């Protein structure tokens, strides 16, 4: 077997040498893990082959197995120490299990979370990150990010039809000076353009609407952009279960295997530095994936296979390994169709070449599925079969090149004890300026890249293909919708699907509150359009820095606990999640540039009657404007302070008990047709939300802060720009006001404004004087024209 496969000598190596070996082969394994492998092979009385070692590295990679999140952690918070046995199980999983909501059909076990839509259909939702590839090769990285998450959804249960893509990006500032860019880092403009066009070209070609997302800018993303790609799928409820049976044939369908994306899983588990070869990034071909999707869904409905999964990180090694986890499998690698000759067996096995899926096909369907694929020019190749040996047996041209017990592969990973520490920071008092030009600040906030219109990006995405988009990303006069609402053509009745997200930059100041606010925002956004807050589901995507640093890991513990607490308090379960760790870059002179702790929360719910869905644009002169929810002097991390260049202050606290009541009441009011427009308050606070509602509807707004019911608020700027959680602005016709208020009894609300025909925003301050009088045209222009493309 010498020519085909190398034996890697690990027996007898000392810790240092093992570490060296891990680095040399880009295995991304730590010394304890290398020692566990060494011990295992000593027991077998031999050394591993290259393909065996590679398989273990892929399977044990942070990217594939999320070992940090499920490791044991010695956690010290403000001097008190405790042992966390398994962070994920004790926080997010636990909340979902305790809640046990009946609409959850399959959670945390398949490629995506699955929840009920109606009696016949289920929804599958998954969000992935593709950060490292997008930093190296923005166009290809982002495109294959979308391509990968689409396959996740195609591979959930027996397969779901993708009906929506979501995209959230975090970039460095677009005006960052070129001469200060660290060596090996692409300029944020180049990353931005590449990522947007990568997502556009892949998503549009697949015929999946991209209709929800966000873009944030912060210097913390300079060397490590974050690219979150999500896909929502629709599937019949009888297609959720899958099970591989011994004797099933292993079928690879779709694209061919090449040398692209070798070591993607392990590379993305490490930090970035200058000079990483772009061969770790895969190359996308959307039409190949579209063809694959077309035949796959037909084969699903004919029940031609008993299980499937996508080829993502780790390539065939992960896909076949995962499917054959409980059975075992025998694979003949020479049968795998290649893009070009010359791949070694281990390369075929771990290549992350795109657009491939692996199916378990009962022998009796062999001919039919092959014919179906051939009928639509989809390459389909049987490469082996599932066994009952509990072993992965890898063969190449008649020789066995690797044998791995699935027991060791999936249960042999040593659980490490990690250190985490968190010291609750004391928020520094912030000295606000004595005189504030509120109108000027409002314009500056509207043109802040995090708040300004993303229309130029949104229009490049086909957000209406499939003909199901009911509330679009742009509403009224191209205003910013809080959530997208879909009406699946296949489903009968008037039930819609709402999808939104929450994300913020508070993580550096307070990771617990950052996570709480992300959850709150994701739910507010759903509620604002008519989504039912009592039928909602959440997805988590943590993007963290160097978790080898106890403080960084401590922040992760805090954020995960916020997820547990808020999930329980809102009675909303997490159904799927993914973490991307080690998002930091090591510069030539050894500095670590790390992302701030970021949690993206994606949310999904149903709209009981989509004909009652609402948008944010003001509808009618003469209406009342209500503020729902309390405002606190919480300016910490606000965009107001960012614009002033100030630091300090308190990060908004989420108070879930009143917030949940408020959301439930607002939802009743919306479904009863009492609400003309509704917008949640987020970046920039009250003033920004009011301005957006006004220019999006082409109607003016006159607010009187003295009637806003603000307690403990002394300054107009705190009222206007605080980003306190769980608040909404709601437009109601005067003769419906009584009914509206009755639905929201017990919640904090104040009718403090009215909609006028005159195209301006006027605000009377707490002191009684007019503190803002701006034309809608100016406000709209500031918001619309800020981003270059």
């Amino acid at each position, binding site marked *: 077997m010498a020519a085909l496969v190398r034996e890697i000598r690990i027996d007898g190596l000392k810790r240092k040498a093992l570490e060296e070996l891990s680095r040399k082969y880009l295995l991304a394994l730590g010394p304890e893990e290398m020692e566990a492998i060494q011990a295992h092979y000593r027991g077998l009385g031999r050394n591993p082959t290259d393909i065996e070692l590679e398989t273990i590295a892929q399977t044990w990679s942070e990217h594939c197995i999320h070992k940090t999140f499920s490791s044991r952690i010695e956690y010290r918070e403000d001097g008190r120490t405790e042992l966390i046995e398994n962070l994920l199980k004790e926080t997010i999983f636990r909340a979902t299990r305790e809640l046990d909501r009946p609409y959850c059909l399959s959670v945390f076990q398949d490629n995506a979370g699955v929840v009920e839509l109606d009696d016949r259909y289920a929804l599958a939702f998954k969000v992935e990150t593709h950060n490292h590839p997008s930093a190296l090769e923005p166009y290809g990285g982002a495109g294959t990010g979308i391509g990968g998450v689409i396959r996740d959804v195609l591979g959930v249960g027996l397969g779901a039809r993708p009906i929506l893509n979501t995209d959230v990006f975090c970039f460095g500032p677009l005006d960052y000076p070129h001469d200060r860019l660290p060596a090996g880092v692409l300029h944020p403009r180049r990353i931005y353009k590449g990522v947007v066009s990568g997502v556009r070209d892949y998503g549009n070609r697949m015929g999946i609407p991209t209709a929800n997302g966000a873009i944030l800018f912060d210097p913390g993303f300079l060397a490590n952009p974050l690219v979150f790609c999500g896909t929502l799928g629709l599937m019949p409820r009888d297609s959720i279960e899958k099970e591989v049976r011994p004797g099933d044939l292993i079928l690879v369908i779709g694209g061919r295997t090449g040398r692209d994306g070798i070591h993607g899983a392990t590379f993305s588990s490490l930090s970035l530095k200058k000079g990483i070869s772009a061969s770790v990034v895969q190359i996308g071909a959307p039409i190949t994936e579209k063809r694959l999707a077309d035949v796959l869904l037909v084969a699903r409905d004919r029940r031609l296979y008993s299980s499937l999964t996508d080829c993502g990180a780790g390539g065939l090694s992960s896909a076949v390994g995962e499917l054959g986890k409980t059975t075992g499998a025998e694979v003949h690698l020479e049968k795998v169709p290649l893009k070009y000759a010359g791949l070694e067996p281990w390369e075929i096995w771990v290549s992350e070449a795109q657009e491939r899926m692996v199916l378990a096909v009962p022998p009796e369907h062999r001919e039919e599925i092959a014919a179906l694929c051939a009928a639509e020019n989809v390459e389909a190749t049987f490469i082996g079969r599932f066994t009952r040996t509990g072993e992965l047996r890898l063969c190449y041209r008649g020789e066995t090149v690797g044998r791995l017990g699935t027991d060791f592969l999936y249960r042999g990973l040593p659980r490490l004890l990690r250190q985490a520490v968190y010291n609750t920071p004391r928020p520094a008092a912030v000295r606000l300026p004595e005189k504030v030009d509120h109108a000027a600040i409002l314009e500056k906030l509207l043109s802040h890249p995090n708040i300004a219109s993303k229309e130029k990006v949104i229009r*490049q995405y086909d957000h209406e293909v499939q003909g199901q*988009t*009911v509330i679009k990303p742009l*509403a009224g006069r191209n205003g910013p919708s809080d959530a997208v609402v879909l009406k699946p053509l296949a489903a009968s009745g008037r039930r819609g699907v709402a999808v939104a997200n929450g994300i913020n930059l508070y993580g550096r100041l307070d990771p617990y509150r950052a996570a709480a606010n992300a959850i709150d925002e994701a739910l507010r956004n759903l509620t604002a359009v008519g989504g039912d807050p009592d039928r909602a589901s959440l997805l988590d995507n943590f993007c963290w820095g160097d978790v080898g640093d106890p403080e960084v890991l401590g922040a992760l513990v805090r954020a995960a606990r916020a997820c547990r607490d808020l999930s329980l308090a809102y009675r909303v379960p997490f159904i799927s999640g993914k973490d991307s760790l080690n998002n930091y870059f090591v510069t030539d002179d050894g500095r670590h540039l790390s992302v701030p702790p970021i949690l993206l929360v994606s949310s999904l719910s149903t709209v009981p009657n989509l004909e009652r869905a609402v948008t944010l644009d003001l509808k009618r002169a003469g209406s009342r404007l209500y503020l729902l929810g309390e405002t606190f002097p919480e300016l910490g991390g606000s965009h107001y302070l960012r614009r002033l260049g100030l630091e300090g202050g308190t990060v908004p606290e989420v108070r879930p008990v009143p917030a949940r009541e408020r959301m439930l009441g607002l939802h009743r009011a919306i479904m009863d047709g009492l609400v003309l427009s509704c917008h949640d308050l987020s970046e920039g606070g009250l003033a920004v939300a009011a301005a957006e509602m006004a220019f999006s509807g082409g109607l003016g707004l006159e607010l009187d802060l003295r009637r806003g019911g603000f307690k403990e608020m002394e300054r107009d700027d705190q009222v206007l720009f605080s980003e306190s959680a769980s608040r909404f602005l709601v437009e109601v016709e005067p003769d419906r006001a009584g009914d509206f208020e009755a639905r929201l009894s017990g919640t904090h609300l104040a009718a403090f404004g009215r909609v006028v025909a005159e195209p301006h925003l006027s605000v009377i301050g707490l002191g009684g004087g007019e503190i803002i009088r701006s034309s809608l045209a100016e406000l709209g222009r500031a918001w619309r024209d800020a981003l270059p493309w």
Partner: protein
Amino acid sequence: MSAPRVLILRTAGTNCDLETEHGFRLAGAKPDRVHINRLLERSVRLADYQALVIPGGFSYGDDLSAGKVLANELRLKLKDDLFAFAAAGRPVIGICNGFQVLVKTGLLPGFNAGGGRLTLTFNDSGHFEDRWVHLRCAGASPLLEGLRNETISLPVAHGEGKFLADGPETLERLKANGQVALQYATPEGEPTLEFPANPNGSEAAVAAVTNQAGNVLGMMPHPERFLFYYSHPRWTRGEGKSQDGLRLIRSFVRYAAAG
């Protein structure tokens, strides 16, 4: 009048076929989504259908140029069937990518006397755009009988939709023959060259044309995306009650049923 059988042609990269099928079903037709391989292997015959639809998408990725590969496949392998179908007066509609295909097969502009060439090229903006537009229904095609002289709303979503004729003479012939079926217009119905009302810079604001006989229609906007009032981007403001896309498909189906 029985429900006409409508063949919705699809291939690798077709991606508006499901909603197009839905629209034709709502409009009273009996649509079948058929992969081009079935026509090539002759297991399905175009002649068995009353109408042909080439829906939107990125056929074969639009890798050479939009619709080029599918057009060549039709032109080189199915030319007799396709041209006979059109010559017999059976209705054909190409939407978005389908329009690009019809132009590249030579079915459009379809002057009786021959000559004249059209193309759909890159938008003036240089990239793909999805936006709703107003359209003036003009021309003499019986396919759009039900919408004559109205101003309707539909979305466009394309990167290569800028209509160009090979010279002023071709454009004049199109106009004189009543072959300009839809024009990008202001909300008041005035054809316009101004962005974004004219989303791609199309010459003479042309959004759709027919052949001279009027039974082959190519259009960039997507009627299958406006089957319900709540598909309109401003339905929460009370707009969109007219469901123009469904009405357009109905008008087409009525003609197919009569033929």
